[in-house]
């Protein structure tokens, strides 16, 4: 299969969906024209689909997401780009109060996708490195996905566009151009709400998503040289969460390590850990371990950011402790 970068897979998914469905449009800051967004994800779309379907908005997250709510209520399928995931907080009400509640409250459908370029490790500081997914996983009525590789990046985005609900799509900036992989041509859907075992193993289960999946995989390779076989589960969807796949793995390995780049404290990992403890209690041979960002804003300077953030080395170390428990 041909290989694409993670970011090219995202672009391909968007143009595939725009081609397929005239109700799909793109909007956000700087997404239009020849420019095509801060990360050039939407470059070329305006030329191909016209300025109307690739709309540059003013700097107004609350209102352009609110506008997407209205478009979606009328049956359009906006793909909204927030320039960095960090700026999703500026449109918070339009997401958590409006889009998230409309279907439950009166049956309206809000089929949009917000693309949120997230995560750090690339020296961007506290306002361009955030991983705010926990806010949205906690909020009823939303769906949240976070692809870890190019094929899923395409397949989850296409599924998100076709979903009848508001879906927040956290794409990992550190993977944009650093990760290449096979991506099916043409139609390719990855179902929302299904995790995937990306590496089989027997001694412990690593549960991760987004940019921490490659880190977990590389930790697993290193561990394997020392005889520890880690199974790696890629959550892919954070909400709905495919807990069955996690449980199936943990009940086999009896040890679980949950990893994400987001702040550990009250992060999505807390939910996963709590559920493992609740539902796999009898199988556990060791306490579930969580790795995540420290309880501080993402710092800029390399030694600080490296101290802040999980990576393959820290994962391997935690896994060794866990395996030895």
């Amino acid at each position, binding site marked *: 299969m041909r290989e694409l970068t993670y970011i090219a897979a995202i672009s391909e998914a968007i143009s595939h969906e725009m081609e397929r469905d005239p109700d799909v449009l793109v909007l956000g800051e700087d997404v239009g024209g020849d420019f095509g967004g801060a990360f050039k994800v939407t470059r070329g779309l305006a030329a191909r689909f016209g300025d109307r379907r690739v709309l540059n908005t003013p700097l107004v997250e609350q*209102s352009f997401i*609110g*506008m*997407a709510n*209205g*478009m979606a209520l009328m049956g359009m399928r906006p793909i909204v780009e927030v320039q960095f995931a960090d700026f999703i907080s500026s449109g918070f009400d339009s997401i958590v*109060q*409006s889009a998230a509640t409309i279907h439950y409250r009166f*049956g309206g459908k809000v*089929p949009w996708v917000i693309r949120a370029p997230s995560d750090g490790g690339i020296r961007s500081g506290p306002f361009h490195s955030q991983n705010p997914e926990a806010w949205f996983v906690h909020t009823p009525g939303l769906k949240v996905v976070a692809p870890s590789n190019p094929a899923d990046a395409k397949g989850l985005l296409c599924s998100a566009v076709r979903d009848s609900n508001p879906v927040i799509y956290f794409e990992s900036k550190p993977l944009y151009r650093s990760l290449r992989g096979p991506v099916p041509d043409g139609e390719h859907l990855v179902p929302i709400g299904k995790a995937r075992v990306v590496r089989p193993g027997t001694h412990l289960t690593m549960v991760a998503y987004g940019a921490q999946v490659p880190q977990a995989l590389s930790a697993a390779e290193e561990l394997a040289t020392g005889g520890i076989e880690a199974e790696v589960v890629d959550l892919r969807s954070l909400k709905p969460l495919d807990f069955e796949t996690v449980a199936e793995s943990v009940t086999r390995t009896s040890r679980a390590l949950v990893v994400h780049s987001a702040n550990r404290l009250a992060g999505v990992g807390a939910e996963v850990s709590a559920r493992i403890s609740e539902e796999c209690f009898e199988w556990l041979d060791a306490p579930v371990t969580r790795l995540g960002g420290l309880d501080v804003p993402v710092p800029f300077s390399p030694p600080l950011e490296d101290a802040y953030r999980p990576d393959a080395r820290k994962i391997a170390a935690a896994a060794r402790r866990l395996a030895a428990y």
Partner: protein
Amino acid sequence: MSDPLGSQIREALFAAPARPDEPEPQPESGEAPADLPDDLRIDLYRWMRLTRTLDNTMVDMWKQGRGLGGTFSGRGHEGISVPMAMALGPDDVIAPMHRDVGSYLVRGMTPARVFGNLLGRVTGPSEGRDANLHGMGDLSLGIIGYVSHIPQQIPITLGMAMSFRYRGEPRVALTACGDGGTTTGPYHESLNMAALYSAPMVLVVQNNQYAYSTPLDQQMATFAITERAAAYGLTARTEDGNDVEAMFRSIKAAVDRARSGGGPTVIEARTMRMLGHAIHDGAEYVPRELLERWEARDPVDHQRRRLLSEGVSGEAGLAEIDAWARAEINAAVAEAEAAPFPDPGTVSDRIYA
């Protein structure tokens, strides 16, 4: 910190029962008739009367302890909420606010369903999920349920209008906000975009001089709501919100303009909230004489007097309408009170579409 000059300006702006210094608003589009047909004028009255009767009944029920939770009276706003919906075409959409029960009724939501929502019954449009006049959306009627967070209805309406532009549909989206709503950030963001994109939308600012307990002069230094709106590059005008015919003409002209590609309009409707912010609020902070002055300009009574004095309708005809409204509402309450509460087993249903 409140500016004493501010309250004087406010008095000057709102004190006089009429504002003779302002010319009668003239419809700007030829499509909006300067002279309204008699049956339309009567219909405006009919819907206002139904709205007022519903409102009075609701207030009484809540005082009697027959309510559930809190609720919002729209007393005094009937001259706005009714024409907001009457001026729309069947394919247009409306996102009313928390006092706009008239808009729901005109749009075809039955009083029984309204009371169903108020009383938390499964027969309400939110099926017991949302409270009072929130969440009463019904897309088959072109109604978007209210989101409490002010002014969420505005960007939603902008988006609906934009979808019509995208698809080339001759439809219009209308919404409202209060004087309080005009001070919020998304109001500014959305009006700027509406002008920029020439969105087919209409926004009615229901300036009732208070946001909850906070009077206008503690909300803004100048009351130039229309001027501020016009500075975005859209059409803006001020109307007497207690004159239902003027409101109808103005909204209709704006709707027609939007439909024909003329872009968005903001209409400031000046009025007064006649009861408290919500049912529990006695509104002691509103000067009694201000209320008395506005009571004399009651929009329902005003229309009634006008129909009689201009010979459009006789006392008997109007009494018949009043009786019809009474009967409709009584039946609706009975139906709603007899309706079941939702089954708790359904609480997690329909979280996703």
